[in-house]
């Protein structure tokens, strides 16, 4: 109990320094489950709490993190035509991925948690765990080459206007992580759309462009030198045939044939393709989804109905077939883009989704159908889940309203009891003892 007494000794004064105390309280309750006991109401409580719920979601996306780190490096070396094999140059790919991912991860949390702590201190309530998940999601849905300052502005926007303005964790209308993404998308379209942002390590993605390494790369180089393994080559340049286009961009231009000219189906399935950091590897995301389903933290209703909605829309488009994108076989829509990531981690956010079981079916189906609609029709940016989820987030309260309304109507319509004459003069109604004798 040495740690416990040490922690208790350093507790800052609540009145003198509220911010420090909030910070302390946040970390203390992280380390030690509090000793509060039940008072009134039930005497025993479930071992489950919000911290555990949130951390389970974060754990479920760890594989996406590991693969995302690798894939940042893999895409970089793919552009300069080195180490095409999965395990070739593995340490270089990982270290390049870390160099790109760590700043994104750290800055997301510095900005997001900082704002969260500040609001908690200001309002005098304990730190809520909402940003545990949002903060873990945001790096995964960003392009690897995003400028850090844009990221910080986006996170601040999402946390302040998307969450704290509504009252904090549990009160927000829109998914916080997606708000950060949508902010980047609408506020800085030129710097993050197109074919360039999905590959990192270059000033500009164009054939012949030399790599752009930083001090971190040279640090890793000296380490690798000392061990005696391959190092980053500062003279490398992007090879001539490279375009940097994602499968979605290709499909929008030339349908499925254009996609398969560049990428194999297996590549798209396993995720060694350009894209947002955490969205590319389908099997690893599905493992995360499975964790959420088995622990019953993610709603299976939303996941299943979103899948069905996407299939439904895909089949309609296949039958229609007016543009090249529409002719992409519906099954392959799951191989490109970030459907599974959106399904597992974004649509299932309980705060912004519908809260009734019937509502969840409608909500999920809506996201699946509308998301694919946007993906296929949006000329500027061929992906739809972000916008579809935010759209359905907006309508979630309305869906719930009608579901509840039907429950209310059903209850109020129940016929009044046969012979149920109640109150005051009621005694005379069954006063006659003969019928009972």
């Amino acid at each position, binding site marked *: 109990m040495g740690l416990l007494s040490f922690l208790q000794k350093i507790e800052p004064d609540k009145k003198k320094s509220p911010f420090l105390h909030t910070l302390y309280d946040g970390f203390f309750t992280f380390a*030690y*489950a*509090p*000793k*509060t*006991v*039940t*008072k*009134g*109401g*039930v*005497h*025993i*409580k*479930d*071992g*489950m*709490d*919000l*911290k*555990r*719920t949130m951390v*389970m979601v974060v754990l479920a996306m760890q594989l996406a993190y590991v693969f995302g780190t690798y894939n940042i490096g893999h895409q970089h070396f793919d552009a300069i035509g080195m180490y095409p094999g999965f395990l070739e140059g593995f340490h270089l790919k990982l270290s390049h991925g870390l160099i790109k991912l760590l700043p994104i991860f750290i800055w997301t949390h510095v900005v997001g948690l900082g704002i969260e702590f500040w609001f908690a201190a200001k309002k005098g309530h*304990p730190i*809520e*765990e*909402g940003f545990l998940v949002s903060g873990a999601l945001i790096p995964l849905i960003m392009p690897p080459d995003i400028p850090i300052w844009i990221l910080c502005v986006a996170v601040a926007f999402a946390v302040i206007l998307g969450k704290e303005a509504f009252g904090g*964790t*549990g009160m927000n209308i829109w998914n916080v992580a997606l708000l950060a993404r949508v902010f980047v998308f609408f506020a800085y379209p030129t710097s993050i759309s197109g074919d360039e942002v999905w590959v990192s390590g270059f000033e500009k993605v164009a054939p012949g462009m030399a790599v752009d390494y930083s001090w971190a790369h040279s640090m890793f180089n000296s380490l690798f030198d000392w061990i005696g393994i391959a190092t980053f080559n500062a003279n490398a340049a992007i090879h001539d045939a490279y375009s940097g286009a994602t499968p979605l961009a290709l499909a929008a231009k030339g349908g499925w044939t254009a996609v398969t000219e560049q990428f194999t189906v297996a590549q798209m399935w396993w995720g060694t393709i350009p894209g947002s950091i955490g969205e590319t590897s389908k099997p690893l995301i599905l493992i995360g989804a499975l964790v959420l389903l*088995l622990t019953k*933290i993610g*709603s299976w209703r939303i996941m299943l109905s979103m899948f069905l909605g996407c299939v439904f829309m895909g089949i309609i488009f296949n039958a229609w077939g007016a543009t090249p994108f529409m002719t992409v076989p519906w099954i392959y829509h799951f191989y490109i883009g970030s459907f599974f990531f959106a399904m597992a981690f974004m649509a299932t956010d*309980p*705060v912004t989704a*519908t*809260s*009734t079981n019937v509502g*969840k079916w409608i909500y999920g189906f809506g996201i699946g159908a509308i998301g694919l609609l946007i993906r296929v029709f949006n000329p500027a940016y061929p992906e739809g889940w972000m916008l579809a989820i935010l759209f359905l987030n907006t309508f979630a309260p309305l869906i*719930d309203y009608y579901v*509840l309304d039907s*429950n*209310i109507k*059903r*209850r109020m319509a*129940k*016929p*009044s*009891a*046969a*012979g*149920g*004459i*109640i*109150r005051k003069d*009621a*005694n005379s*109604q*069954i006063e006659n*003892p003969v019928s*009972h004798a």
Partner: protein
Amino acid sequence: MLISALVVIGIILIFISVFSISDNLIQIEAQKQGIDTQKNNLSLVPSLKDLFSKSSPSYVDKNNLHRLNKGMDIKLAGAASDEVHHAPVARYAVKPQDFRGISPIPKMEVTEGDEVLAGQVLFYDKKNPNVKYVSPVSGEIVEIRRGQKRSISHVIILGDKEQKHKQNTPIALSNASRSEIVGFMQESGVWPVINQRPFDIIAETEVIPDNIFISTFDTAPLAPNLNLVIEGRGEEFQKGLEILARLTSGKVYLGLDGRGQEKPHTAYTSATGVEKHWFKGKHPAGNVGVQIHHVNPIKNNGTVWTLKVEDVAMIGRLFLSGTYDATKVVAITGSEVTEPVHYKTYKGASISELLKDKVTSDNNRYVSGNVLSGTQLPIDDFVSDAHNQITVIKEGDDYELFGWLLPITPRPSASRTFPNFLIPGHEFEANTNTHGEERAFVVTGQYENMLPMDIYPQHLMKAILTGDIERMEGLGINEMSEEDIALCEFACTSKQPLQEILRDGLDMMREQA
């Protein structure tokens, strides 16, 4: 080849959809016509439940069996064995606050030092002077304890070794009117055991209930075995049912245990003049509120009464012999009790005397009732009127390193993030730790899984918190009672005090009524 296969599949699909739509229409029509009142399966195909669920034992009436899929059984250590001992208790108490709706300072009919008989009037409510509150035992009034603002908290009686009963003159039942019966019950002191819903208050004299409901089994954690409670009182129970049938304009409904673990007592299964419904499911299937919801829900502005089985027997005894018999079987349960058993005693028995030499550890929580909806009491207090159980569990006032992530001891949970499903028979030694701090509502669908009723508890709670009376009523607050929402409160990830919120809502509704 492929095309013809697709065509065949298409035809089969169309046939199945036509079949299932028409099948559904038949069922809907049957419900509308009132043929399918018990939600029988009138479909052409047997339901999956009929095919795959374990068949119920032969004593269960399949036509009146309600299968409830939601809820959860919390298995705790310290269930009472089926032995019934006589309790070595000398002191008993009547607590006016046990009766919801009574004013805090009732009019006392006795003073300290008086000798009373069992069934003799102790006090009454000045607002409602007809309803008498009587002594459960004969003996000496040793203390009238006062609480806040001079309210009366306890009337403590030192019981005689040989119990003497006040003899009431029985009324001639065959030609007694309803008001005569009601008057007799109020005068003799059995009236306050009748609980009126909505609001869970003592039955109002001028109200004729739509129906009366009695649950004959209890599914709560460590609940007493209600078969033991009624042992030897079958005749009184039947008489009580007959009396109750004369007080309602509807029916008396009996909820029986259809889970198949133990056959209900013959006093329950052979009861006549009542409608019997069987329930199969996890807790809260034994809660009378859940049973009402499935049998005959409380209508708009409707009222029902609910009673406990021992109280039905007490009413029966009064009409059979003219005496007030407060006999009660109390289960002594919980992980901290050395020998959990059932005790035969009277209403309001002293907890410390019941637990004498049975609790060795200290830092315990003493609960009158079960761990979900019971009341925390100091050990020198007395069993509450409505409870027939005492639970003793450990207080959980300890820090736990990373307790939220890697708990050291197993704990009951509805969540699949704990590997509890791997140890299905495990009896948990739960303590009173909250296992987390209170948060805003985040997780959805959790309460719905804990409550086998067509109600949206989370939205109901939000309606109460915003004080929206109309919405509260629409979402079914009148069908709810604290014990029904208790399991949701246990499972709540956000640690919200749901029973407290619900009581606030019910109080709001009552003020409006």
